[in-house]
């Protein structure tokens, strides 16, 4: 290998991944959109023309105009402001749910794959059960036990989504645990806990990251669906799903009321999916070689 070539590979795996990711136009578009969405979430109080809960009863169900860019709802609230504030909720729900389910699923997957035997058998049968339900139906069942509300909805969604982390991490752990460097780690006196979290976890991290980027948009959709069904966010929260739920009643006379929150959900979910695809493609060749 020439010195030049060696310098080219003389970077960490993450830098290589980023290099490949950057070449993917769709993924970069997703990343740019996501940055804008994050900026909107942070700056919502500054850029929103009205408070999201401020009612203008004289301007109910107004179509888009220069005063209300996205129109108003049945209580005269500015839809643009509500959509902008909704970004905060959507991102919070998506990220928190993904992190909670990752924490549960990754831990169980690591234990299952590393120890095997009866522990593995029991955990994987639980995963099978959780997986056999459509996540919305299971989340619905859990929320109906916990009671409606955004926090309960998030817990419920996390409890339905950890299974995919557990299964994927278990599979990867099974192959990583056979690697010589795991045996070498045991040979120098590392404990099982250290081996799980310092040797196996970093080596399965890339798959977990890809899974998280796919998990965030599905969490957003399921949360919106729960809100739509009245079991998630409660009024007057500016939640996109909740807005769609109310807007349904006025679909024929105020179509803009449904269109804007709907489009907001679509753009956010698409951005995450583009990033997820790009990330997967950027990481995969490294794993194959």
């Amino acid at each position, binding site marked *: 290998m020439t010195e030049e070539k*060696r310098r080219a*590979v*003389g970077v*960490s*795996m993450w830098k290589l991944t980023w290099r490949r990711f950057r070449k993917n136009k769709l993924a970069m578009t997703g990343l740019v959109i996501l940055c804008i969405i994050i900026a909107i979430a942070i700056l919502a109080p500054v850029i929103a023309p009205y408070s999201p809960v401020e009612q203008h009863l004289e301007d109910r169900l107004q179509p888009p105009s220069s005063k209300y860019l996205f129109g108003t709802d049945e209580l005269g609230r500015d839809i643009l402001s509500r959509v902008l504030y909704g970004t905060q909720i959507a991102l919070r729900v998506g990220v928190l749910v993904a992190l909670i389910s990752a924490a549960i699923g990754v831990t169980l997957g690591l234990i299952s794959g590393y120890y*095997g035997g009866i522990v593995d058998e029991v955990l994987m049968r639980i995963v099978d059960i959780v997986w056999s339900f459509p996540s919305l139906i299971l989340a619905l069942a859990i929320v109906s036990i916990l009671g409606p509300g955004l926090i309960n909805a998030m817990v419920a969604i996390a409890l339905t989504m950890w299974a995919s982390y557990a299964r994927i991490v278990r599979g990867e752990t099974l192959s990583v645990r056979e*690697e*010589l*460097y795991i*045996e*070498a*780690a*045991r*040979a*120098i*006196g*590392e*404990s099982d806990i*250290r081996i799980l979290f310092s*040797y196996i976890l*970093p*080596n399965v*991290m890339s798959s977990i990251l890809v899974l998280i980027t796919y998990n965030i948009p599905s969490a957003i959709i399921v949360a919106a669906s729960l809100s739509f069904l009245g079991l998630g966010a409660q009024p007057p929260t500016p939640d996109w799903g909740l807005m769609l739920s109310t807007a349904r009643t006025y679909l024929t006379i105020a179509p803009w009321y449904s269109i804007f929150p709907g489009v907001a959900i679509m753009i956010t979910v698409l951005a995450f999916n583009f990033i997820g695809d790009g990330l997967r493609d950027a990481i995969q060749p490294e794993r194959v070689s």
Partner: protein
Amino acid sequence: MNDGTLLKIEDLYINFRTDEGIAKVIDGVSLDIKYGEVLALMGETGCGKSTVAKSILRLLPKNAEVRGKILFKGTNILDLPESELRKIRGKEIGMIFQDPLTALNPVFIVGNQISEMFKIHKLRIKKTILDEVVELLKNVRMPDPQRRYYSYPFELSGGMRQRAMIAMMLAGRPSLLIADEPTSALDVTIQAQILKLIMDLRNDYNMSILLITHDPGVVAEMADRIVIMYAGQIAEVGPVRDIFLNPQHPYTKGLLRALPLGHKEERELENIPGRVPNLIEPPPGCRFHPRCPHAMEKCKKEKPKPVVVSNEHFVFCHLLRGG
């Protein structure tokens, strides 16, 4: 207890439970390593030499059943609780592997992996941990040690990776180094360098070495004594000179005849007819008898006991009992 013996393996039997049945991989192996000695464990692939090595650090998979004694400085390693065992692993007994690329964690820089040894075994650090690690890298003659501290394993050549691995093992100043085919994955020119390095370090660090190999060239260059293994049994034990110049066991003779000696004489390479036996249903008695040109009725029934050839030279063969 100090009679100069560092490690003593007594009547080691190892079975593996597999789907096809119980594989009797190690069948009554006894050996010992003295302080400062290089003992080579030699045999073909599958003869159980790596299994013996791994059993010393109890690295065998869960389906292995181990019987016998492995006495390290007088303590039976097989009886130790997990926490005591971890103190021996890496600190008292170091191990280097055949493929140094896959033996290093691919996601961390070399320096961190070597520093890990200081953390696990709470080793004394004189200056900073960086200095200690660079010092170790210097001791294994790693080129450009300062920079190599920050290298990922995939950025290093095979030889450099093995040096990094050795540096890691030196951190704990072990009294025994198990080298499992340390040079088989390396280029011939690098092999010689690594072997020389290991021999130099053995003197500097006062280590005993258990060398696992199938390469008689490596053995001749490094070892004090050889243990020849065949299908989980010991065939012959003795000082290197005695084994090479005066082999007694038919398997040892066959093994040495199967070597290309190059410069010595032009002759056709011989091979030992037959195959390594299936260890799920191993041949009874001496496991070599189906391939042995001198096999007798007795060989099929009785496991041979050691016969003294000369001082320290033993052979496990019925042929020599009578003569």
